[in-house]
């Protein structure tokens, strides 16, 4: 795994996880992964192995919490849910992301107009 892109990826992955939990409510790891892939129209393919450390990090930082529960098919699974801090973080990060994309979009437009 290359170092630099993974940092960016990790940041966006965290945002995606938070957003997924906000829309879907409590969900297990596999469910989160599937949901991200579906939302992206299967254009994103997740390495599931990187998802769990990311979840762990969010939990350590107190943005999400986890409990063991039972899945829709009666399987034991660990369910993650958003905490209040996580909700705030989601709003903040989403806004930062909006700003970043807006700036980048404008930057790209100007670039095209010049050439």
């Amino acid at each position, binding site marked *: 795994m290359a170092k630099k892109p993974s940092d960016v990826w990790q940041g966006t992955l965290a945002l995606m996880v938070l957003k997924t939990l906000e829309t879907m409510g409590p969900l297990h790891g596999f469910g989160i992964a599937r949901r991200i892939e579906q939302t992206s129209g299967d254009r994103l393919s997740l390495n599931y192995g990187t998802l769990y*450390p990311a979840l762990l990090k969010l939990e350590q930082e107190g943005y999400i919490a986890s409990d063991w529960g039972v899945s829709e098919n009666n399987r034991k699974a660990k369910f993650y849910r958003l905490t209040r801090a996580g909700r705030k973080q989601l709003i903040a990060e989403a806004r930062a992301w909006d700003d970043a994309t807006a700036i980048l979009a404008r930057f790209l437009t100007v670039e095209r107009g010049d050439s």
Partner: protein
Amino acid sequence: MRTLRGWIVRLVALLRRRARERDMQAELESHLDLHIEHNLRIGMAPQEARRRALMALGGFEQAKEQYRDRAGVPVVETLLRDLRDAGRRLRRSPGPVLIILVTLAVALAVNSTVFAIADSLLLRPLALPDVDRLVLVFETPPGGGRSWTSPATFLDWQHRAKSFRTLVALTIEDAELGDHDRPERIRAASVSHDFFTVVGNPARGRGFIVEESTFGRHRIVVLSDGLWHRRFGADPAIVGRSVVVDGVPHRVIGIAPPRFGFPYGTELWRPMAFEANALAARDNRVLMVMSRLADGATLESAREEMAAIGRSIAQQFPETHKNRGVLVQTLAEGFIEPEVRPLSVLLHASALLVLLIACANITNLLVALGVERRREVAMRYALGATRAAMVRGVWLEHTLLALLSVPLALAVAGAALGLLRASMPARLAVIVPGFELLDVDGRLVVFTSLLAIVAAGFFGAFSAMHATRHEPEVLKEAARAQTAGVSRLRLRRILVVAQVAFVLPLIVTAASSWRGTRQLLNGPHGYDATNVITMRMTLPEWQYPDPSTTRRFVARMLDGLRREPAVNGAAVVNVLPSTNINQTFALEVQGRSAPREEPDYVDDRVVSPAYFETMRIRILKGRAFTELDADRAAPVAIVSASMAAKYWPGADPIGRGLRESSVPGAPWIRIVGVANDILDNWYVGGSVPMLYRPYEQDPARDFALTIRTSDAAAALARVRTLIQGIDPARPLNDVMPMREVIEERLTGPRQVAVIMAALGALALLLAVIGLYGVVGYSVSQRTHEIGLRMVLGATQRDVLKLVVGQASRLTLIGLAIGALITLGTTGVARAVTFGIAPFDPRWLVALALIIAAIGLAAAYVPARRALGIPPVIALRHE
């Protein structure tokens, strides 16, 4: 913030590794199950469903590893694992580990003990708030050294200096507390009114205010906490009440905080009031000056400012301040007796040498241990361990070992400090600043731990180098132990040589220190200290206002004592030999050109006629004083032999004149005799010029009484009755045999001598163990060779010569280097004996011979053992 929280959670998680591991396993399994189920649902074959799920996860074990890295702290986990390994390895060889622990603990303990002494007595001797910013200010006389200052100069300093909060003046003099029923002499200080704002306010009541520095309002006192408890039963109502000090009622306005006794164990403080006429004379240098640096000022800036002020004062008052400067010292610098510092350096250096010798022994043991572990090391390399990882492991093992020895070291140091405290007379302990702090404390724990880690790095460096060497051939079944042992043996030999080289100067110095102290204690002193009892008396000014009343008291007392059958001689003297006080006389010799700017000072002793007879100081020429050398008779003096030799070399001093140059128009004093030199201020080295004058011609209110008697108890009882008859309120202070006076003065050097002797013995023991270890090891390594030699016809003698010869070579090389070190540091020996017992080459030779003999004995034992093995068995020895 959140990141910090993450780290805390991760660190805490280190403690719950098992639970975390289970949780992770369960979650990843559940993930796989869910994914496989999903794959099956979208129509994959079971095999394929499982394969795909695993692929998406990136491998089950790999996923776990990624998870773990985030869950815990990888570096810490590796460290913990290494630490566990190190612990396991240590448990595997309990014998050597125990030896290392004890050796290291003892060596650390001596360093801790010395550190504790230096720390509490030298580095922070005074328990005062923010003591680092407290300073002392002195004048510097043209000849060097330092002197106190006069009230006039003090006021100039206070007026001009900006580097200090305020300058405080102090004088120290004893005071008599209580009236006729229970008078007690206590240490008292007069201080300018700012004193308590500089050193910290009293615990009860208040400090002095500026108005109380004027005559008439100055009859108030602050008591020490100890005095308050002792004399007044800690009664809080004493504040505001009146106590009698020097016969005059004083109001108590405050109680100092517990343990506060600055300076020199003072128990009572009075405000200082300057008399108008005292302000006129600038050479009236009676004030000690202290201060606290102002905010923003540094010691350097204060020094610069005071130097400038000193120059300007010197210009303004050339007759009293020509070539005089100003010295600013920290309190710690200023309060340490000058002879203490070299001793402290010596003790530190010696303790470090002991630690080095111990480290050499430990290295020896570790190298031997490393040989046993060569297979394990080679195996680890074969399994892919890197050298860095191996060195880290070994280093951890050593550090762990070193830290394990710290509690043991602290226990030993604590016991040693306890002994030291117990061996210090209580009356000395109060005046040694910081002595009550002498104990194991947090700083000592930190110091010992750090030293242990440094030591571990030191003895670990060599053995780690050897222990982690990559030697794949060891894994071969029949590899001979000797093949790789050569360089190890060389290292061990170097260590033994170094040990012996360090031991020699150490024990030579220890012996000098011991010898010097014995000599100071047992003489010859130039006087006879046996069967002499001494005591101090002070006649208070309010009761004995003029010299004639003082003379009358002393004459009546000596008269009465002369009639006592138990008393074989009694005399008064202003200053007893072997005490830390002195009185000097600014000497002007008749017939010499005008006195120089800075006169010579000679020790000044004012004695009653029987002093020489009582103390058995021989009169070499001329006569002793008699009753005729009285008040109105012609002034006379006796000079010591060294004074005669210095000022009248090759001439007869009798009949010559001298006088006190600091008193304008003083009458000439005629020399009537020459007395034998006595050993007095031993720490300045040898005898110093001493002048004796008759007590009748310059009576002091403060004096010591010396009595020669073969029955001290009876004599003392008679003295008490006698004095009761003259002045019932007169207490006798510091009653003790002359011999005890000497012993008390030698307390410091004796303690140093004891510590040095212990260090020397320890070093010698360690070196002998080291030598024994190396020879023993080399014999066991060469058992095969020895067997071969014997089979080939070598006699027992030859073998003995071989083994012992090797040991003696090592010892001799070590001794030669040690002798060079010793000869290079003879100055040290002089310092520890204050020049009384200078370096003596005979001692060097004798001690070297003793070490050589012990070394040979240490080699002989393993050599005999090797000979005891029958050659056939020796040949089979691997």
